[in-house]
């Protein structure tokens, strides 16, 4: 089971049926094209909605152009939000991508 993130915000309480988790970009090159593509492809496998929030700015994590726009560099923090029937599976797989630094730390 995934621990509920301490990044759970007040607004999120309105919707108890979703997962929010803060992650840090570990790989040096940040979310450049290759990791962005991996992320989008992985997210596409799940039915749940997947959003990434950075600096209060929210993009759809299933969109490559959106993820590219994030310009998320190493060390930056992102809030991931999963919402849908398979949200736990989606969260587990995607968070592990970030934790492994997309295999390119």
């Amino acid at each position, binding site marked *: 089971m995934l621990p509920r993130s301490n990044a759970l915000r007040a607004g999120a309480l309105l919707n108890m049926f979703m997962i929010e988790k803060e992650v840090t970009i570990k*790989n*040096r*090159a*940040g979310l*450049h*094209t*290759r*990791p962005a*593509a991996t992320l*989008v492809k992985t997210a*596409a496998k799940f039915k749940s909605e997947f959003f990434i929030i950075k600096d209060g700015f929210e993009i*759809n994590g*299933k*969109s*490559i*152009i*959106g993820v*590219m*726009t994030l*310009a998320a*560099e*190493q*060390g*930056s923090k992102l809030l991931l939000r999963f919402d849908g029937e398979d949200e736990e599976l989606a969260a587990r797989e995607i968070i592990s991508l970030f934790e492994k630094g997309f295999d*390119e*730390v």
Partner: protein
Amino acid sequence: MNATNFYMSSESTQEIVLNGIAASPGIVLGRAYIFTKHIPRVEEKQIAAGDVEKELLRLHHAQARSQKELEKILKLTEEKIGNQKAKIFEAQIMILNDTVLFDSIKKRIQKELKNAEWIVHKEISKYQQMMMKSPDDYMRERAHDVEDVKNRLIRNIQQELLISRFEKKSVVIAEMLTPADTVLFSRNDVLAYATDMGGTTSHAALLSRSLKIPSVVGLKNVTKHAQQGDWVLVDGYAGTVIVNPTRETISRYNKRKREHRQFEATLESIRDLAAQTTDGKEIRLSCNIEFSQEFKFISQQGAQGIGLYRTEGIFLRSEVYPNEQAQFNEYKIIAEKTKPYKVVMRTLDIGGDKVLAENYSEENPFLGWRGIRILLDKPEMFLTQLRAMLRASAYGEVWIMLPMISGIKEVRRSKELIEQAKQELRTKQIPFDEQVKIGVMIEVPSAAVIADDIAQEVDFLSIGTNDLIQYLLAVDRGNETVSSLYQEFHPAVVKTIHHIIKAAHRHNKPVSMCGEMAGNPIATLLLLGLGLDEFSVAPIVLPEIKKIIRSVSLKEAEEIAHRAMEMKTEDDIRDFLRVNLHTIVPELLLE
């Protein structure tokens, strides 16, 4: 049009000479094809509810057609240049397949009842603007990719063809060329490229060099001066474009072209000979290299190894921060290919904004966190690179060079880290050259002043003139208002170079020069006379420099240097060197 018409028209129109940056060599004359980018006229149009399906179909066809076009370009690039360059287009294809993006475009068409190109324009521009705001160069480059995709889609929605009116064997004139344009035109026997914008390191410039198409960039307003069908002369050696050249100009350039060919043939004939003065002093002549495509030039031009291998390329061009193994693979190939000669590998020399991609910007990056300063603050990163370089030293002759050194403390700390890297490799029993040579790039004035002390700490010195001159004269040569004050032959520059060489020689350490000045033919006699041991130059100018070295005795060169050292102004020194060069190598073509 035939030649007669051309002569008539050339007499009724004004010849216009434009100066830009030489990006790819060669001289050609041809008709101008003004390539106007489809910064598409996108009009907002209301559509009837019954036409939504038709509009969605237009979008669908445009998407498929754009994908086909891009796949073709991708394939062409892979064939002509290789996989690495082709990556630029893969990202664009990925965007075309972004279902989230296209779903929201389709929804907006249905909901707002607007034409497809308008919605595509609105929706994609949103992302593009966000990317343009990024302080990261990489991200802004991506914004251009996004714009390319957008324009391609819109053009295909409007069902226009790209290079419809392009006639074979024209000179393409444009504000800016994308990598895709550069590759596509090359298929249609383009004669040359001339653009308003761009620098020598832009993707398009690199591609045109790889494709061997003469090209001049950074002309600022060539698109304003040249009209469709005008005769245009492009000189990719000097970086000059002449619109409506007169008969006299053309014959002058024809002569220059012949001379270039002849001179190139002469150079070809000395390719395998040593860079030796007439009285037998042998000079080492090596190349500066950043891209692997430049590799073939080394043997082609008869270089003795690599005097400066810039490692920034691997870092900036790869999507991923290269780990030790990835760096080692790259360095190993270079060490093996350069054998039996040496390769001087410079550790990462880059501004803090680029390398770490941490949201970092400085008021004054040239005086900020860069080069060795970053490496010493990020020892893990430095050690990774050092281990990779050391490991490569088992496969060839690798020398390691430290950039942006300003004092002894940095040299000593770097040496400690090199020792630590060696120790780590010893523990793991990974082979490397125990005697690997360590050197310092002298490019900060303080390092030049204490060159004596630095020479005692290391195995060699290399003078990086580009930064040294900027720092010494307090001139940013990218700043047009003051760039004329950037003077390679300023007496202070000449005296500083002299000081560095003498200091190194006092401690029996060799000195090379790897800045642009080493490749300036006017400087060759001076540098030779000042006692420089090695010239590391861009591959393209190497044969010329060799020709000069082979035409003079060390004694003559020393006299010339001695005289130049007594002169008080840059003009005097430059003129004096030019006259001497002309006497010694009369066939050399100077601008």
